[in-house]
């Protein structure tokens, strides 16, 4: 599957199938700090991602201390 990461923007190729939870664990990402979007659909942590999927991992943390 194609995995798009941001901040900095980069792309990875990983072999599926994988659950979202397993994907985040493999990438050492805290599930609290990202959304996972498969195609154009938000997916939950138990969703299975197939080899042919395109997945965006979108960070949600933002902000200065203002």
């Amino acid at each position, binding site marked *: 599957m194609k995995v798009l990461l*941001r901040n900095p923007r980069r792309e990875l190729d990983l072999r599926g199938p994988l659950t979202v939870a397993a994907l985040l664990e493999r990438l050492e990402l*805290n599930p609290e700090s990202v959304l996972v*979007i498969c195609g154009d659909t938000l997916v*939950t942590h*138990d969703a299975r991602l197939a080899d042919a999927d395109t997945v965006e991992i*979108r960070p949600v943390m933002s902000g200065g201390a203002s």
Partner: protein
Amino acid sequence: MKCRVCRGPAVIDIRRHNAGFCAEHFLHHCREQVRRGIKEHDMLRPGERVLVAVSGGKDSLALWDLLVALGYDADGLYLGLGIGEYSDHSGDAARSYAGERGRKLHEVDLAADYGYDIPGAAAATHRAPCGACGLSKRHLFNRVAIERGYDVVATGHNLDDEAAVLLGNVMRWEAGYLGRQHPVLPATLGFARKVKPLIRLGEREMAAYCVLEGIDYIVEECPMAAGNRHLGYKEVLNALEERSPGTKAAFVFGFLDRAQPHFAGAALEERETLGECAVCGSPTTGEVCAFCRLRERASDA
């Protein structure tokens, strides 16, 4: 995972609620959390004019959208900070949102209207850019609200923001800041009321709200905020939240219920010492307010 409400397929799971939601019921959940936060803290009253501090990011655009969906009379204010492409893109996001939905967006540009920008201010004052940015925002959102007849300024601070600020204030026992850390700061002479209607929603929920509502926000992080202390606090809190869902909510709401009132006196003492800035007339503890001092140093540089 299934939606807690309709048992259809869920699109988001929220571990602190031990629940999943489909798109329709997640959007309903967000509106309900905002409605409940506003009611619990008496943030807004019917007929009031609300000025939303809009950055082009997920929180402020979602807030604007939610307030209008709940029937409030809410306009936006975008502040051009002069942070290169980041400001160009964030301004575009704010203008596109307002244009597509027919909403009124005020704009103030630091460089054009006040003669400085945030990178210049940080360099001239040797302050962290986030400090100069926060100071400029607080001053100008308040000033525009008062000058243009708004009853209240609404900001997109969410549960994660409040938890991170609280952690920072506790780590240093900042009594005055702890006394002012509340979802509502009442109006006083020279200050519009300030409210934080997203207090019951996390930033992951706000990003999901934008995705599901088709709101195109700036995903990239501000380049000047990278590695700042606030983001470090968020990482620590997220690590705790992963092990123990609900930690951030318990921290913030426990503080508001049981600790904040003990610090309110320290904030009141500070307020009693406020006079008028000799340059702009804004409330200040000194002769010239921090914003005017920043502006003078930054525009001279």
